[in-house]
């Protein structure tokens, strides 16, 4: 047999009714609710039910101890629900993550390029022209001096045997 439920309370008064049950109702709201209760049987009935259930639940607290694992279980479930909510909210998270990776890679590449360019520039400026006077036609590239005798000969040959 199905339980017969009372008519539900008025939607706009449910918060006040709950406050009344828990004793958190302000004076102004109490007067407003009292006015309403004078003419609303559904709210009266729901309030009576809710208030009675508070006393009923009080009997539950000392006897039916949910056990030490209950809080842990509930908090785990709450965390699970929250993580689900967070996942639902972060539809754009993969794109944001990808964008950050691109940005990081681009920054790194830029840093490498700038460093490489600076080092190269420094190396060029540090090259000292060690060629003796009068032999500069033989060795036109000051950045690359001949390493051995063969290279000297090759360079001399390339510059028309030292003839002008």
């Amino acid at each position, binding site marked *: 047999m199905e339980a017969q*439920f009372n008519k539900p309370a008025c939607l706009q008064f449910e*918060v006040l009714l*709950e406050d009344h049950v828990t004793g958190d109702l302000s004076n102004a709201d109490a007067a407003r609710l009292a006015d309403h209760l004078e003419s609303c049987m559904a709210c009266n009935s729901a309030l009576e039910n809710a208030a009675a*259930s508070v006393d009923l639940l009080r*009997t539950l607290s000392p006897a039916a101890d949910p056990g030490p694992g209950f809080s842990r279980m*509930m908090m785990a479930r709450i965390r699970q629900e*929250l993580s689900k909510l967070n996942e639902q909210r972060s539809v754009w998270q993969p794109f944001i993550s990808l964008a950050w990776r691109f940005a990081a890679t681009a920054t790194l590449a830029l840093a490498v390029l700038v460093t490489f360019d600076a080092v190269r520039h420094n190396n060029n400026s540090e090259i000292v022209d060690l060629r003796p006077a009068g032999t500069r036609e033989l060795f036109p590239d000051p950045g690359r001096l001949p390493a051995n005798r063969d290279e000297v000969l090759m360079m001399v040959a390339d510059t028309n045997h030292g003839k002008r």
Partner: protein
Amino acid sequence: VHDILDQLLDELPERDRELLILKEVEGFSVQELAEILNVNVNTIKVRLFRTRARLMDLYRHRLNVDSSHPVAKGRVKSDGSAI
């Protein structure tokens, strides 16, 4: 009363049962529950009120008593017996 109450709580939707137990047994405040569940305080209050009212409806139905009965009126001792 305890056994009946346990059974009645089982008849409630799981979400409402957990909310009611967190409030009444675990002692969480409405504000804490609202923060944990990431909903409005008033939403918690409305859900709690409806769950309380429904629980008592189920209780009356189970005991088959009318609203004039002391147990149904909520006049219950802490050990679960009627005053």
